[in-house]
């Protein structure tokens, strides 16, 4: 009897010992560079961020991880060419570690629709890296309406002085308070594997310039492509009405606005890089990057369509009748 108990105890002790040994093995950490550049059609690069990765004990901010002393060159290639040509070399801001820009004078045309661009980065302490993107066409067939009245809104390009006042009623459900509705030819967007986004810029902290934006608060949503589709390969096998995707506009609800007051709304087309990145946010672990030998994103958006910018005044319906 005692022998059995001893055996069982010995087995249990051996098991416990084995369990304690199973702690896993850590993955080797290699330092890399991360590049972020959100370029806009018709503009030059006002801010390109270059930083390095940090290990688990470091302070993870640009002040600590920003990388100075890099040689960053912007290249351009027209749709008809096979080789890139150099546009210019970026310069680091004097007091902003790891933030680089390309002066307007070096790039007077700005990013051009249909052209390909490459950013190459060289640094003594790191492997060279580069990223490529194509400037997308503007949003096709854009039309923005005020859902309350059903009337088309006037863009800044059509009338620089126009300001539309949009009202919301406190306490209404979110679905009822659609303030703007932007429609565009989504099929064309889809064919380009691009997506559309919007930005809301509170007016008092916004300085609008064709080549330079300073934005404090923005909202960007990822739009689904509004075309019918199927989730299953053969619809007939499952019955009708399976897996249809439905047409969708780009609605803006009141909660998307930062606060009451003057705001500017900009609708823009983004490229396939941004789309891939947004997709990866819904996935797991690894974010999409188009930076070769590094991390980050080089993406170009286009809000140069005539009817893409709107100045609006957002206020509650209660304030309309004080």
């Amino acid at each position, binding site marked *: *009897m005692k022998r*059995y108990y001893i055996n*069982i105890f010995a*087995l*249990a002790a051996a*098991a*416990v010992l*084995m*369990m304690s040994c*199973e*702690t*896993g*093995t*850590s*993955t080797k*950490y290699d*330092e890399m560079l*991360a590049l972020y550049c959100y370029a806009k059609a018709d503009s030059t690069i006002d801010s390109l*961020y270059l*930083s*390095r*990765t*940090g*290990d*688990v004990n470091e*302070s*993870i*901010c*640009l002040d600590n*991880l920003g990388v100075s002393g890099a040689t960053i060159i912007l290249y351009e290639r027209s749709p008809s060419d096979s080789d890139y040509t150099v546009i210019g070399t970026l310069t680091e801001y004097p007091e902003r570690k790891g933030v680089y820009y390309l002066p307007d004078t070096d790039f007077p045309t700005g990013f051009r629709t249909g052209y390909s661009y490459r950013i190459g980065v060289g640094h003594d302490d790191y492997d060279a890296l580069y990223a490529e993107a194509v400037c997308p066409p503007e949003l096709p067939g854009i039309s923005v309406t005020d859902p309350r009245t059903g009337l088309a809104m006037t863009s800044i390009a059509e009338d620089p002085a126009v300001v539309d006042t949009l009202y919301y009623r406190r306490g209404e*459900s*979110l*679905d009822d308070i659609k303030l703007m509705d932007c429609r565009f030819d989504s099929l064309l967007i*889809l064919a380009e594997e691009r997506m559309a986004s919007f*930005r809301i810029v509170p007016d008092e902290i916004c300085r609008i310039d064709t080549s330079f934006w300073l*934005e*404090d*608060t*923005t909202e960007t949503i990822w739009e*689904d492509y509004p*075309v019918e*589709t199927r*989730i*299953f*390969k*053969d619809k007939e*096998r*499952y*019955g009708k009405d*399976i*897996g249809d*995707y*439905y047409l969708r506009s780009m609605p803006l609800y009141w909660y998307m606005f930062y606060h009451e007051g003057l705001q500017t709304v900009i609708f823009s087309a983004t490229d396939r890089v941004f789309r891939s990145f947004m*997709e990866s*946010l819904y*996935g*797991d*672990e*690894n974010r999409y990057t188009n930076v070769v030998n590094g991390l*980050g994103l080089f993406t170009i958006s286009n809000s140069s369509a005539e009817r893409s910018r709107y100045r609006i005044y957002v206020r509650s319906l209660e304030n309309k009748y004080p």
Partner: protein
Amino acid sequence: MRKILIIIFFSVFSVYASTVSGFVRDASTSEVIYDVNVYIDGTSIGTATNINGYFVLSGLKAGKHKLVVSSVGYVTHREDVVLLSDDSKKMDFRLEPETMELQEVQVSIEADELPDEVMNIRAGQLKLKPRDIRTSATFIQPDLFRSIQTLPGVVSVSDYSTGLYVRGGNNDHNLILYDEIPVYNPSHLFGVFSSFITDALRDSKLIKSAYPAEYGGRLGSVLDIRSRDGNKEKFEGNISASLFAGEGVVTGPVYDGGFLIAARRSYIDPILDMLGDEYPSYYFWDGQGQVYQDLGRDDRLIFSTYVGSDDLSFDDFKMDWAWGNNTYALRYRHIFSPRLYSNFKLSYSSFFIDMNMFDWFRYKNEIADLSLKNSNEYFYSNDLVFKSGFEVQRFFIKYKQSLGDTKFMDIDGSYYIYSLFADMTKTWNSKFTFKPGIRFEYDPILNDDFKLTASPRLSLKYMFSDFSSVTLSGGRYFQSLFTVQQENQTLQIVDNWFPIDDSVDPGICDNFALGYETTRRIGGGNYKFTVEAYYKYMQNLQNWKETTSSTDDVIEDMEIGKYFVNSYAHAYGIEFMAERQFGKLNGNISYTFGKVRKTIDDPLEDNDTFDAHWDIPHSFKSSVNYNLNRKWSFGSVITYSTGRPYTENIGYYVHIDETGEEHIVAIPGDRNRMRYPDYFRWDISANYTWYYKNGSKLLLNLSVLNLTNRENVQSFIYDENDEDSTVEKDVFPMLPILPSVRLSYSF
């Protein structure tokens, strides 16, 4: 016509010798008992009752025989039977449940009385009785699934989940049957409690791998749960209350049959409501019922149902979220002849999730299964039994998602699966048993290679003696219905079921298990020792593509294959268990070694091979009960296991968004390469029973979970320190020390 054909078919095998057939029932309730040994004393002629308590002893010579009927937990019954030549006797037996005192007496004789049954291949099978669940340490209330989690070969990934990971299989590889009806998501409170009311259950059998041909549609295991038939003899009932929920069971005779009604409801919602609108309101409820009528000795009609749901509402978000199961089954049992036993079943089972937020976001997933099944057992002789049947299932799938007036997904379809199965059990010399089987499935929605599948099954058993045997089982298994799985999602909130289409191949599992069991008498007690090894090769496991969002858009040919990435896995392990079923001190102690290595079959993911998130190589478990006397009993459950694997963060970088704002992004290490600290939990319980003169009794159960208050890690959570922009790692813990009390009154 069909009946005639069956009779003609089986009559080819008829033999002309004496036969004894019948049912074995519990004397106090008239409910059937399965796995009961029925044998002729002093001979090797014997059999065991099937799941419906039916047995056939055939090939008996004319003359006087002493029949022995014995089962764990019951007083052994002996009866003389006189048979004439070519006699066919129908004999039903009623076994008296043994009391505590009788169990002690039984210890001294059990080794002689309860030999292993050669026809009964039990390797990889575990049985649980409700009374074992009731008196063990419980998480607030007795729970079948939590008791199963304490068994060898079964892994739990969280204190917060009743999910079962059996022998390296995922939690959707288990076929969970309630009275033969598949149940798709048998849990409450996001998996914290399982659905079934313990007092309304009769038996539960877990077949951990290599299950027989009568079951299908899952890669791994079968959990066959049977509800109580209903007491045909008298009215009785039970009410109980725990800190979280109250439940009641009533059963009694009705006409020539019995009924059972059970209900449970949680009562935490009034407390949550009192706390204010900032807290959600939540409750769950269950209802179980069964009514049966005996239409003569050979016919029984049974209706059983299980319904239950969870309801979560949150006023601040205008949220209503309900999910639950509805199952209904009508079964008809008919004994065509003493040798031919048939079951017919028409059932409906559905699982639904319905969520509404702000009257704006709607989410609905529903799977329903309408099934017609027939199974027949033909007892040709004591050493040859045939089993065959068919099943037609029609599945209904709904998956809808909408945001405002925008529909993301709107799936509404149905499809059929047709199954045909057959197996036989043949024994030679009362030593060696050979059980081949095959299951054919026709699944029209799959691609041409898998429309018609054949799943061979084979079990072999060799008995060295009445108390020692070795078993080898294996088979090929298919699964075409699966849940959405993500490797980083160890705590599945609710399961979303998807049928696969012809763009991917169905899940395939080749499965082998080798087991040895022996019963030895040591120090006056009987101990069963079991060693079982298994190997599984699982193919076509569908994982959610980690780089694909749930609203991806590739328009023209949107199909399952584009959303899920294929993977395959090898699982192997060995289990050791020592068990004492009788006596004051009873229970089991086990050690399991098991590995699950998974490979993503996608060049984009570098064909990554890693430990599955439920891979727990070493697991030590002990579940012991001590019955001090008729009134006092104590329980202890200990689990010590390797920590689960996880993907560590090896570094961070700054993500700059388009406004220039900085966000910290983690750099993941190799997938599932690190492990959480070892898991340890010790639960104890004490039970005191008051017995009253009118036959009723009151049970007080006091439990303490995680007695040592060990902080087991559910996951790590990361938070940015605003002062220095560093990332701090904190533990999201599993359950702390948790006392609970439960009162149960039986009348």
